[in-house]
């Protein structure tokens, strides 16, 4: 039994594939709406290797990476600055919480006016959403630095600046990574939605939407799965980076 333990995560996948195949085989759902797993994965394979899906995938990766990077570059230093003084943070907390709660998709028309139709709008809306999530997490990470650790540094004679760089910054890293993971997920959501509508020519969102319009169901499912793979992969990537560089997280 023990030796089979590592296989547990695959049980759910196998059950899903089995139920899906059975549904198709028993014709519970119209086969036009639900293609078989085989034809879906074949569409995914050909799309990724020789079709347009691979290009769309890369486009979405590019936009998500850009927006997350812009968000991180702005939000991490700002979060540290705000978090290092609780009074400053409290004075802007409402604004951050308000815009964090505002659906970023509601900002599309505004950003369209500002940046026109094209990548700049998509990337800046996604960056806007991700930046607030990252900012909030970084600021809280800095503010919630263990009091004892700050006192320990102070007792050893560290200046305020040294405490900030030697302790607060490192203390906030685990929370910063939580922010980055949430931020990249949100950026991906916004990018995919943006690719569906405003004058898009490429990207996974466009691919899903176009396949649906053309009633090419295997291709649509393939694009959905590709988006899933991307989201999961980005999250995993950040987790691995965190485990490598923030080795003390959760210990």
């Amino acid at each position, binding site marked *: 039994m023990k030796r089979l333990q590592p296989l547990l995560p695959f049980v759910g996948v196998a059950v899903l594939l089995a139920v899906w195949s059975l549904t198709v085989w028993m014709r519970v759902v119209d086969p036009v709406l639900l293609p078989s797993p085989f034809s879906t994965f074949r569409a995914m394979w050909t799309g990724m290797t020789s079709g347009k899906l691979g290009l769309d995938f890369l486009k979405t990766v590019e936009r998500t990476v850009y927006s997350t990077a812009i968000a991180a570059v702005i939000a991490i230093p700002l979060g540290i600055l705000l978090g290092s003084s609780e009074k400053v943070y409290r004075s802007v907390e409402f604004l951050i919480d308000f815009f964090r709660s505002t659906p970023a998709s509601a900002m599309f028309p505004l950003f369209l006016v500002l940046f026109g139709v094209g990548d700049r709008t998509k990337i800046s809306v996604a960056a806007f959403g991700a930046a607030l999530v990252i900012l909030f997490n970084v600021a809280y990470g800095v503010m919630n630095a*263990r*009091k*004892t*650790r700050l*006192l*320990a540094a*102070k*007792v*050893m*004679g*560290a200046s305020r600046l*040294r405490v900030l760089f*030697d*302790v607060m910054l*490192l203390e906030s*890293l685990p929370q910063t990574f939580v922010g980055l993971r949430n931020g990249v997920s949100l950026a991906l959501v916004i990018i995919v939605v943006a690719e569906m509508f405003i004058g898009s020519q490429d990207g996974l969102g466009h691919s899903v939407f176009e396949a649906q319009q053309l009633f090419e169901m295997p291709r649509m499912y393939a694009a959905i799965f590709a988006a899933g793979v991307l989201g999961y992969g980005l999250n995993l990537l950040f987790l691995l980076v965190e485990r490598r560089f*923030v*080795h*003390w997280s959760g*210990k």
Partner: protein
Amino acid sequence: MAGAQSIATADPARKVHDPTHRTAPHVTIRGLSKRFSDTAIYDNFDFDIPRGKLISVFGPNGCGKSTLINMIAGLFPVDAGEILFDGQPVSKIRFGYVFQNYREAMFPWLRAFDNIAYPLRLMGVSKAERTARVGKLVAHLGVKIDLALYPYQLSGGQQQLVSIMRALIVNPEILFLDEPFSALDYEMTLFMREQLQRVFMETATTMVLVSHDLEEAVYLSDRILLLSRHPARAVEFVAYDAPRPRTLETMSEADFISTKAHCLDVFQREVRKG
């Protein structure tokens, strides 16, 4: 206040002491007052900490044992009063502080070695000298810990030992320990008492230990400061002169038992007053 008056040595001029003057008190506390919201924890408190002795602070819960050393070490501001080390303020002296919660006091992103060397880095000591000084301290104390490990890879006792070494690396004039062993299991506590006693015998640094364990307080100390409920007074400053190194056998000697019983008596009298 009568008790506190009899303890404080008469030194109205409070002149700057010559540090080599070994019989002068190391730390003089005069007119210390501290309030937390409505409660006066200290009200015009006077006390002298003798030089080169290990003293323990013991008293009822919430009487302000930790607050006292936190104020002496400058972690908490005082409302009124003066605390001087050989006539100097805390900002002018080198001291070490060991926290109860070693897990939160260590820097988990630094290896044990770099944790110990961190105060030297703050002082701008070169890497070569940092390595040399940590090596010297390790040899001096006979510590057998792999210092290349991160704190979370060490046992609780090892972590606390590392944090004691971090406090000692600057050759402090005085070492404060805030319930340093209370988060450890009994076996580790016994071991750590031996380690601390050894450090004290090796370095003869003035040490102020806050303890909630009377056995530990008496066993380790030259003098035990018994505090009253707040506003805290020094009820008694009990002397215990058993020769060092003290061992587990020391704890069954008549002298130890009677000192501990006396402290417990005073303690219970103070607790009942509340």
